[in-house]
C-alpha cells in the first residue's frame, strides 16, 4: 500500500476541533500519520503551517492526545513526530522517551541536517540505538553526498520536500526531481511532501516511483472550515489515486 500521510499540528485550531478530525479519520485509508509538535520557531514551514504552530503552542495539551496515539497505534497506523531540533535538543532523551511511550514509530527533524549538521550523525546514531526511526528529510537543496551519507546510516523511508517550505509553489521539474532521488537512493522508499494537493500531483509522483505523499497545508483550510465531510472525501479520493 502506498503511503498516504496526513499531517496535523497538535493543538490547532484548538484541541476540541482537531480531535473531531482525528475521530473521523478513516484509518483503513491511511498507513502513516504525522503529528507536528508545536514549535517556537518553525523556520522551514510556510505561513499556513507556521500559523498552526503558533496557535498550537498556546493550546497543545499532551493529555488530550494520548488516547488518539493509542487509537492509531492499535489500528496499525504508524505515527511520526515532526519536531524541530531547536525545540527538543535540550530535552532530547525525555522527548524521544515520551514519543516511544506513546508508541510513535519515528521522528522527522527538518532542521537537523541544515542547522545542526555537525551534530546530525550523532543524533541519528543515538536514535538508531534507541530503536527509534529517524526519517531523513531531504530537499532539492540537499547535496548529493549528504543524501547518500545520511541515508546510509538509516533504514527508514525518506521524506523528500519538493519545495523550499510547506505550502509553497515554486516551479520545479518533477521528472528530474524524482529521477535524481531514485538514482541516488535506488530501491529506497521515498515519500514526497510540500506543496502537494491535487490528484494529478500525486499521480505523477507515483508514476515516477514514489512510495507515498504527505499532505499538510491543504488540510488546514478544511480544518479551519470544520469541513469534516470534505476532509473524509479528500482522504478517500487521494487513497484511490494512490491505489490506481
Amino acid at each position, binding site marked *: 500500500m502506498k503511503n498516504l500521510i496526513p499531517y496535523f499540528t497538535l493543538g490547532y485550531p484548538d484541541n476540541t476541533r482537531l480531535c473531531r478530525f482525528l475521530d473521523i479519520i478513516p484509518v483503513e485509508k491511511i498507513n502513516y500519520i504525522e503529528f507536528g509538535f508545536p514549535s517556537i520557531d518553525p523556520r522551514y514551514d510556510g*505561513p499556513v503551517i507556521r500559523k498552526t504552530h503558533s496557535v498550537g503552542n498556546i493550546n497543545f495539551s499532551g493529555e488530550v492526545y494520548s488516547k488518539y496515539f493509542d487509537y492509531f497505534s492499535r489500528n496499525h497506523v504508524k505515527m511520526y513526530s515532526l519536531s524541530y531540533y531547536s525545540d527538543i535538543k535540550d530535552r532530547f532523551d525525555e522527548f524521544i522517551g515520551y514519543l516511544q511511550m506513546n508508541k510513535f514509530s519515528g521522528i522527522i527533524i527538518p532542521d537537523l541536517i541544515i542547522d545542526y549538521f555537525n551534530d546530525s550523525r550523532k543524533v541519528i546514531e543515538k536514535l538508531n540505538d534507541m530503536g527509534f526511526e529517524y526519517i531523513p528529510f531531504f530537499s532539492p537543496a540537499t547535496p548529493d553526498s549528504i543524501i547518500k551519507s545520511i541515508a546510509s546510516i538509516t533504514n527508514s523511508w525518506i521524506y523528500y520536500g519538493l519545495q523550499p*517550505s510547506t505550502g509553497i*509553489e515554486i516551479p520545479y521539474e518533477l521528472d528530474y526531481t524524482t529521477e535524481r532521488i531514485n538514482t541516488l537512493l535506488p530501491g529506497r522508499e521515498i515519500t514526497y511532501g510540500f506543496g502537494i494537493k491535487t490528484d494529478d500531483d500525486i499521480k505523477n509522483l507515483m508514476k515516477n516511483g514514489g512510495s507515498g505523499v504527505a499532505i499538510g497545508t491543504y488540510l488546514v483550510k478544511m480544518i479551519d472550515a470544520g469541513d469534516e465531510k470534505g476532509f473524509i472525501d479528500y482522504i478517500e479520493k487521494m487513497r484511490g489515486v494512490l491505489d490506481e
Partner: protein
Amino acid sequence: MITAINRDIMPENWYNVVPDLPEPLAPPRDSKQDVSSINLLNKILPREVLKQEFTFRRYEKIPDEVMEQYEQIGRPTPLIRAKNLEKYLDYHGKIFYKYEGATATGSHKINTAIPQAYYAMKEGVKGVTTETGAGQWGSATALAASLYGLPAQIFMVRISFEQKPLRKTVMNLYNGNVVASPSTLTEYGRKMLKEHPDTPGTLGIGISEAVEYALDHDYRYMVASVMNVALTHQSVIGQETKKQLELIGEHADVLIGCVGGGSNFGGFTFPFIPDGDETEIIATTADEVPKFSKGDYKYDLVDSAGVLPQMRMYSLGADFVPPTIYAGGLRYHGASPSLSLLINKGRIKSDEVTESQVKEALRIFANTQGIIAAPESGHAIATAINYVKAHKNENKTIVVNVSGHGMLDLSIFGEKK
C-alpha cells in the same frame, strides 16, 4: 552560429554548485510571519529564472539564443598571462587574469543579464527592473533588455548616480530608464526620502524599490547577485577559465576574486569546487565592508524593505549603510548563501584590502598590463599582489578574475573617498 574556436572554450551548460556543497544550503525563509515572500517570487522573477534559483541540477543547458548573444557581447573573454606583472613583482610563479572587462558592457554582469532578459522576453512580460550600485549591473540590464526589446527601469544608488554621470549616459544609450535611489517612483523610496533626505542610498534600498516597481507594474525583477541563479549563470567565467588553462596545459593553484554579492566570484571559482581541495580560493572584500570578518553568518534580509525572503549568509545587517567608498559594487551588506556556506566551512578563505592598497594595485596593474581595472576588481588584484609577496618562493599559478574595466571610474584617482 558560434564560431568553432569559441565553441571550444564556451561551455554548453551553466554549472550549479548546490549539489556539490559540503552541507545542505539553508533554504530561504519568509521575511514576514503571515505571508510567504518565497511564494511572492512567482510574481517577481521570470518563471524560468525562479526555477533555476531552486534547482539542484548540476548542469543547466544554456539556450542556443543565449549562446549566440554571449558570443556577440564578447564571450569567451580572454585569459591572459600577466607576464609584466610577474616581472614587476619578481615572481617566478605564474599570474593569469580572466578579463571580464572585455565584454560589451565592460563587466561580467552581462553574463546573467542576457539569460534573465531572454527568459523574461520569452514569458511575455511588460518590462524588467533592477537596482545598480556602480552602474555595471544597470548597464548590463539595460543592454540585455534592449537586445530583447524590453523596457528597463533601473534604480541607481544615489551616491553612484551623482558620482558617475557617465554610467547613466551608458544606460540611457542602451534605452534604459535610470533614476537615483531612493526615488519618488516607489512608496518605499518616498518613505526613505522622507525619513532620510540625505541618504546616499544603498543596494538594499535599490533592490526594495525595484521589487516594488516590478510588483506594481507587472515587470520582472532582474537578479544582479546574491541569489544562486546569478552565480549559476556566471559560471561561464570559471568554466571558460578551466578550459583555457587546460588548453595551455596549466592548472590553477590559487583563484582570487572580489566579492560584492558574490556573483563574479562564485561564477569564477565554483566550477573548480568539484575538483577537490587542491586549489586555494580567496574572496576579497573592501575593509570598509568587512562582511566576512565582522559580519554574522545568519539569516538576514536581502533587501531593506524585507519583501524578498531572508537568506542565511554573512551579513553586516540589512540596515548597514556602508561608507560612500570608491567601489560601489562592493557596498552590499551580505553575500550569496552558497559562497557564505563555503567560507563558513573554510573551503574558501577571505581577505580584506584597504582603499590605498586597491589604488596602488590598480596603478601597478595599469602600468604593467595596460588594463585599467574596475575598482572592485582592484581588490582582487591587491590580494593577488599581497599573496605573491607572501608566497614569493612557492612558484604557484595564480588566476585572478578581473571582473570589469574601470574606464568610467577614473575619478577615484583624483579624489579621496
